[in-house]
């Protein structure tokens, strides 16, 4: 499966993979491939992530491959619009001080986005090894990042512990995968970001659940202040909208909200 995918990708990459850069310098002429060392590192639902070297930069290719089960025009529309939105959101995020991969090259028609590689561990994988203070720090920074994005009308759309990355060496916290991000300023969408983070700690990291949530909200509050309480109220509302939620019964029977 993976080999078939890579073959398909290399066809799409052909236009840039065959290009070369020629560097003229005092010491002579040097010819380099634009793209080399392709290696599939993860296959997601929506895209494949391929590690590569792009113009000597350690990079990843995010390739939104065609989905055989989708009608082609709908599939195409998604791939194009999500690729563009992702690149836009990444640039915007960087400009407001959120650490993310930096976009280097894009080809929306083919669903291609090349960006810098962040060498580190996801919070999801690292959380067992970190002590309480470190977990708190990472979650607080993540909360600050999300709040900054919200202040600037961006919702991330997939704030899970897999998408929070701690860089090796520096320990800097990066936010990755803006594939489901969107430019909106609605409290419901902002609250869903917070809800998704909560759910991801509840389902995978029960032992640090309270700490991670508290620190995330501390960070969020440090940017957005009292507005955070409105967000938390909305998170509660969203949870009650779900199926078969016991709390909802209270409102129905007793008029308590």
């Amino acid at each position, binding site marked *: 499966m993976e080999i078939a995918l890579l073959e398909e990708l290399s066809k799409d990459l052909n236009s840039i993979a065959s290009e070369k850069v020629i560097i003229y310098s005092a010491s002579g002429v040097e010819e380099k491939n634009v793209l080399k060392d392709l290696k599939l590192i993860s296959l997601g639902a929506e895209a494949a992530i391929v590690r590569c070297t792009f113009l000597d930069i350690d990079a990843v290719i995010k390739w939104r491959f065609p989905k055989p089960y*989708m009608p082609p025009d709908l599939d195409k529309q998604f791939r194009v619009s999500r690729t563009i939105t992702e690149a836009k959101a990444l640039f915007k995020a960087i400009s407001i001080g959120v650490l993310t991969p930096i976009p280097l090259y894009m080809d929306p028609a083919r669903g291609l986005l090349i960006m810098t590689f962040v060498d580190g561990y996801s919070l999801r994988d690292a959380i067992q090894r970190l002590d309480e203070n470190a977990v708190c720090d990472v979650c607080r920074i993540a909360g600050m990042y999300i709040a900054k994005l919200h202040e600037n009308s961006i919702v991330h759309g997939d704030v899970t512990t897999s998408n929070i990355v701690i860089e090796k060496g520096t320990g800097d916290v990066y936010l990755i995968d803006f594939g489901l991000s969107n430019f909106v300023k609605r409290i419901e969408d902002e609250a869903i970001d917070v809800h998704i983070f909560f759910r991801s700690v509840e389902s995978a990291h029960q032992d640090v659940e309270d700490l991670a949530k508290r620190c995330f909200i501390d960070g969020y509050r440090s940017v957005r202040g009292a507005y955070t309480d409105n967000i938390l109220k909305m998170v509660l509302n969203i949870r009650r909208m779900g199926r078969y939620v016991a709390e909802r019964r209270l409102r129905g029977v007793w008029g308590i909200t």
Partner: protein
Amino acid sequence: MIILGIESTAHTFGIGIVSDRDEGFILADERAKYEPKEGGIHPREASRFFVEQAPQVLKKALEKSAINPRDLSAVAVALGPGMGPCLRVGATVARVLASYLRKPLVPVNHAVAHIEIGLKLTGMVDPVIVYLSGGNTAVVALVNKRYRIFGETLDIALGNLLDSFARDVGLAPPYVVNGVHVVDRCAEKGRKLLLELPYVVRGQDVSFSGLYTAAIKAYRQGANLHDVCLTVREIAYNSILEVAARALMHTKKKELMVVGGVAASPILRDKLEKLSQRYGVSLGIVPPRYAVDNGVMIAWTGLLMFKVGITVEPRNALINQRWRVDEVDISWR
């Protein structure tokens, strides 16, 4: 070991009798389905229908299985999630049977039962489960002895969306004709997708209420009904497929199983086959007869639970309309 199971969570009053032998484990499978003349399921009307039908269904099931009720090992009943008035009929019948026959009573979660009968019939061991029905839309997988929810709908369920939409544009009832949902049928003549309808995937969750509103609005503003049907179908199914693919990648499981009433859709099946090919996982689809609500799945799950000693006193066997699938300890696996 022989277990009698009672299902009455929504539109079907069903009694199933199963044994723990491998060949022909289903001894009886009797059902009475409430079909509304117009609109959706009215809980009161459905429960009245159940009250009228229950004795007949029970009698037929016992005759079919040719067993003496005294030979039953236990009685199992679905206590939730579902509609209160409907659940109460099944619970009452179960409490009476268990007390009168002096047999243990086993409390079964309806959603867990859909999953367990699916595992039994597809032979899958540890799949990612896509549970689609009128009241449920969730992607779950067994982790640490619970069927944990990886993604679900933030508002209405897939079946709910299709049924409500069909009703509001005048396609239903009946909702399903010859095993095909009327929205699927109407979509066959659709020519183009209305790209302005919202496709909502948030993390691992989906949301259909916005799609429902936008679809009704598009239709009222004069869009071709077949095109609207096609768009609703494609957006709804594909968002679930995306979430299912996420769960597969996240859990690294190698099997994908589809359960629940909507699993019968041939269109969805085709898409799932392509998806599982792409990701190199095997696909299990529960046969339509057991994908919809039935008594057999309750009896079978009751059997698994009874084997590890889970029972309830009849006086404590109360229904729970909002009994989530992830609240049940799966101690038998």
